[in-house]
C-alpha cells in the first residue's frame, strides 16, 4: 500500500530525505527516490514497497556501508573551511574527517556508529 510507504517517509526527518538509506539492486536509494518510484507504480517500486512494508532490508555490513556513504556525502558537501572540533583542542578538517570515516578510525568511527543508529531508526521508523 502506498499509504504505508508515505507514512514511513513522513516519519523520516526532512533533512534526511535526500540521503541514501537503502541499497537495492546495485543502487543506493534515498527516501525521496523510493517514494517517487513507488508512486510511479513500477515493478522496482513494488519491490521497494514490499521491503518497506515487511521492514526487511539488508545485512549489517551493507548498513554500515550505507552509514559511511551518508556521512561522506554530508562531509563532502561542507564548505572547505568547515570541520569538527572539541574543546580539548582537537580539530578535524573536512579532509581529516573524510579520511577518518573512510578508514573507520578515531572520531570517524564515532560518527559511523552514530550514523548507523540513525539509519536503523529511519529504516524501522
Amino acid at each position, binding site marked *: 500500500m502506498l499509504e504505508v510507504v508515505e507514512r514511513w517517509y513522513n516519519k523520516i526527518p526532512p533533512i534526511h530525505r535526500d540521503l541514501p538509506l537503502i541499497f537495492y539492486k546495485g543502487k543506493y536509494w534515498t527516501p525521496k527516490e523510493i517514494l517517487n518510484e513507488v508512486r510511479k507504480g513500477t515493478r522496482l517500486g513494488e519491490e521497494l514497497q514490499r521491503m518497506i512494508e515487511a521492514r526487511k532490508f539488508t545485512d549489517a555490513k551493507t548498513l554500515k556501508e550505507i552509514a559511511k556513504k551518508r556521512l561522506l556525502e554530508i562531509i563532502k558537501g561542507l564548505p572547505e573551511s*568547515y570541520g569538527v*572540533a572539541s574543546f580539548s583542542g582537537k580539530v578535524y578538517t573536512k579532509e581529516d574527517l573524510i579520511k577518518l570515516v573512510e578508514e573507520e578510525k578515531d572520531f570517524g568511527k564515532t560518527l559511523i556508529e552514530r550514523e548507523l543508529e540513525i539509519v536503523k531508526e529511519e529504516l524501522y521508523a
Partner: protein
Amino acid sequence: MKFLILSTQYGAWCELEYGSCVAREIAEILKELGHHVRIVMKPKPEDANKAINEFAPDVVWFVGHGNTFITTLERLTHWIVDKTHCGGREDKNLNILKGKIANALSCLTAACLGKILTKYYGCNYYLGYEKEFWFLWCGCAGPDGFGCACGRWNPLPGAVRDFVNRFAVICMHESNLYFLVGLALGFTPEQAHGYSLKRFDQWIKYWENFKFKTGVERYVAALTLRLLKIDRDIQRLCKNGEYVKPEEPPTDPPEITEYAAVQVLSEPSGANIYVNGELQGTTPITLKLKAGEYTIRCELSGYKPVERKIRVKEARTYIIKFVLKEEEISPVKMMAIPLTLVGLGCIMAMLKRLSR
C-alpha cells in the same frame, strides 16, 4: 539552595551580547528563584577550596573550557582530584566536594570525572560529559592556528554562519543551564538531568525539521545534527560512581520557537495568568509571545494578585515566578534566560578565548 559558581571565563563572558549561559546571568536567575549564589572568578585552587569550605554550597558549578593553552578549570579540577588522591599528602583537600552536586561546563573538566568524584570523593551527584563533546568548526584559523567556531573571521555570511552559532550555543551552554535551573526549580538531580536532556531533544528536533535553502545549509545542518546527538548521548549524571538514568521532569522546558517563550510559575501553583488582561491559563504555563511589552497578572483565590510588566525579545526564553502571599503583595520574581538562537556575540567571545 546554595550555588557556588567557579568560573575561569567570566571576564570574557561579560562582553557577550547573547551569552546564553553567562555565569552572571545564570547567577541572577538562581538568585531570583530565591537561592544563595556566590561567584568566584578565575579562582586559584586555594580560592576554590576556600569558597567551597566557607560557603558550604549545595551545588558547585565549574564554568570553563578545557583548552589546554590557557588557565582552565581543567587544571583546577585536576588539582582538586589528583592532589587529594595521593595518599594523604594533601589531606586538607580530601572530600572537598563531599555532599555537593557538581556540574561542569567543559568537556575536559567533565570527562570521566563524575565517577571519580562520586565514587571516591563523596560528591553526591555529578553532571558532565562522559567524553569530550564536539562542535562544528569553521576553520578560518585564529592567531594560534586553532580554529574559530565562527564570528568575524567566518568567511560564510548569513544563515550558514547562524547554524554554527546556534550549535555552539547549545552544546556549550544549554544543557548545563537547564540542569541548574531544574535544580533551582526544586527538581531532583535526576529530574533536572531529564529537563536538560529534553532541551537537547528539542534542538535535535529543530535540526531534523530544518528547512534548508541551499545544499551547503543542508550539509552543515546534517553534520550539526549528528554532533548534537553524539553530545546528548555522552551527557551523564553520576551518583555513587555509577551513571544514573534521567527522570521525567515535572515541567517541560520552554519550546524552541521564533517567539519568546515565557515560562510562568507561581508559588503556590494553579494561579490564573492574564496577559494584557486576557486569561491564558493557570501556572505552571509557558506563553509564546511576540517581541514586545506585556503586562502579566497572576491571580489566585485567597491571595493578593500580582502584576508585572515585561519586555521580551523573540527567540529568547524567560522565566517569571510569582510568589503569592495571602496578606501582602510579594515581590515579583522575574528571571530572563537570554537563550538566543543566534549567539554571534557568544561565539566571538569564544573565539577570543580559543585564540589565546
